[in-house]
């Protein structure tokens, strides 16, 4: 009993040999990103331009912001399918506030608070009542977007104040947009939170074995609740950005984003079963998805065909290491 080695691999913070680093998931993603970048610049003369590349980032910044928090949530063994619906609800509430004459700071506050509130609602249902998060968030997904539909019907909110447009359309410096800056800052914050704090270690512990984590003194319920709140918060922030970028609110806003966000997280090497993953991987995956959609867009490939590439990319990138491992095992035994 005492000298049996731990069966479950505990990721992160263990010294990796160089060769493991070279063959790591992140390295694979960097290789894929470089390959797509090269193909893109070869295929279209318009690709290698500072403004093109800047436009490219708008494809994924909003989804990537949510993906950061979603990564933590999935590592802890839960999932949130309601994020796109939270965007719709938060955007609708901001639209209502505009009709009532609210200014930019109030709008931003409303977006963030509604997001946080929705996340807390999911978190309460999952942690207090012990319900499976996939079902709860399918339910709240219909509920949140349903409320947006009840309020708006087939109408749309417009008339956002000019100063509100900065969040989704403004640039911090030259071609660096506010959205991209926010994403990079948030990525650093989430990287620190997941990989450099005891909170992050607890998230991994919960994902690997919630029962053992509980017995080790980790407050599983509270941490999961915080993660749902964080995911809701990021969805609220994303809602501010999207609403600001589009300048209008329809109840169908951000439809289908939840699956793209989850694709991003899984592509980033986060185990859908929980317990493993990294923020760097998620950020790389976000850039890859942005590169693919933008590159194909320059080649006039319709959006729906791009989704084939995203789907294939997801399955191939997940399947490759499995096939590779199997081939190697067969060769050595």
């Amino acid at each position, binding site marked *: 009993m005492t000298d049996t080695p731990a069966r479950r691999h505990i990721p992160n913070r263990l010294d990796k040999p160089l060769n493991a680093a070279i063959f790591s998931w992140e390295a694979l993603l960097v290789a894929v990103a470089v390959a797509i970048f090269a193909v893109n610049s070869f295929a279209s003369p318009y690709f290698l331009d500072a403004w093109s590349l800047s436009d490219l980032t708008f494809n994924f910044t909003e989804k990537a912001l949510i993906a950061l928090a979603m990564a933590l949530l999935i590592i802890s063994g839960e999932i949130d399918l309601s994020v796109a619906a939270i965007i719709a609800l938060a955007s609708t509430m901001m639209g209502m506030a505009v009709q009532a004459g609210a200014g930019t700071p109030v709008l931003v506050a409303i977006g963030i608070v509604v997001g946080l509130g929705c996340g807390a609602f999911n978190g309460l249902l999952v942690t207090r009542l012990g319900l*499976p998060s996939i079902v709860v968030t399918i339910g*709240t997904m219909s509920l949140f977007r*349903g409320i947006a*539909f009840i309020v708006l019907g087939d109408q749309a909110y417009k008339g956002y104040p000019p100063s509100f447009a900065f969040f989704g359309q403004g640039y911090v410096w030259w071609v660096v947009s506010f959205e991209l800056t926010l994403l990079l800052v948030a990525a650093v914050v989430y990287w620190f939170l997941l990989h450099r704090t005891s909170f992050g270690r607890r998230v991994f512990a919960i994902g690997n074995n919630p029962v053992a984590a509980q017995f080790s003194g980790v407050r599983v319920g509270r941490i999961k609740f915080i993660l749902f709140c964080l995911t809701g918060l990021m969805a609220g922030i994303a809602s501010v950005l999207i609403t600001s970028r589009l300048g209008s609110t329809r109840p169908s806003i951000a439809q289908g984003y939840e699956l793209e966000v989850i694709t991003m997280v899984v592509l980033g090497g986060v185990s859908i079963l929980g317990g493993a993953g990294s923020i760097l991987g998620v950020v790389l995956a976000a850039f890859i998805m942005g590169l693919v959609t933008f590159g194909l867009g320059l080649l006039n490939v319709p959006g729906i065909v791009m989704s084939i590439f995203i789907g294939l990319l997801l399955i191939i990138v*997940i399947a490759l290491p499995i096939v590779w491992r199997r081939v190697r095992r067969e060769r050595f035994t």
Partner: protein
Amino acid sequence: MKALPRYREVWLLAAIVVLIGLISLRFPGFANPANLRQVFNDTSILTILALGQMVVILTRSIDLSMASNLCFTGMVVAMLNAAHPAIPIPLLIVIALLVGLVLGVINGLLVWRLNIPSIVVTLGTLTIYRGATFVISGGAWVNADQMSPEFIGLQRAAFLGIPVLSWIAILVVALFFLVMTRTALGRSIYAIGVNPTASVYAGIDVGRTKFIVFCISGMAAGLCGYLWISRYVIASVEVANGYELNIIAACVIGGISIAGGIGSVGGALLGALFLGIISNALPVINISPFWQMAISGSAIILAVVLNARGERRQGRIILKKAEAA
């Protein structure tokens, strides 16, 4: 308290009766047999899809690609019909089943042979199948005037006073009921959901059974591809967009546990009917159809809260007993 989860279907049936009663207060014509028959007919496609999804969920997997499969298969049969109206409809239905099966086989092989979690596989194929629909159709629609009268008319023809569409749903329900309660396959599906490890020791090939359930859900989606297109007489890339979550919602309301192993054919049928009744009732009692989404969302949350009490795993109970000793 203990009897409640055991007779979950009875409670759901009671809820449906109460629901119909409440609707009848506002609109007395709702509960008459002709209207209820219409509601059942409207819900037939969702019922078949929910049954296909049920067998997948019972094995602790999920099939998010069903709506995309339906869209792709529907486009294939619609284009075939538009190009070759001479192909008899029964043959087209067989083709729909086969195309759906092939898409299900792709899901199943990835889950079985490569051991990729089903949620990841079907998240990928969800976008791939819908994208493939665009590729084969070039983004064009197949309209009602391009479809042959038989293609559209078959499911509307009445047999013993009930439309063929309803008969197909009844047949499928009966078939699933037989498979789930009277065959070794049905028992294996439940066993895997309750305890995959024990199932292996009991001699069940878990991977192969999972492969089979994806074949079943694929065929169900394929069949519904034809039924959907011939019902709404338009085939486009947008068909059934986002419908995968309605299918899962019907299962959840029907008391099928997302953790696997718990659920029944009757539950899936009632879950689908519950959603069908709501969508049929809202217009007649003058509630804006925009309320439907929020209502079904609330119903899902309520259903899962009520069902959660019965879903305590047996392993937990044993552990607690051991602790007490």
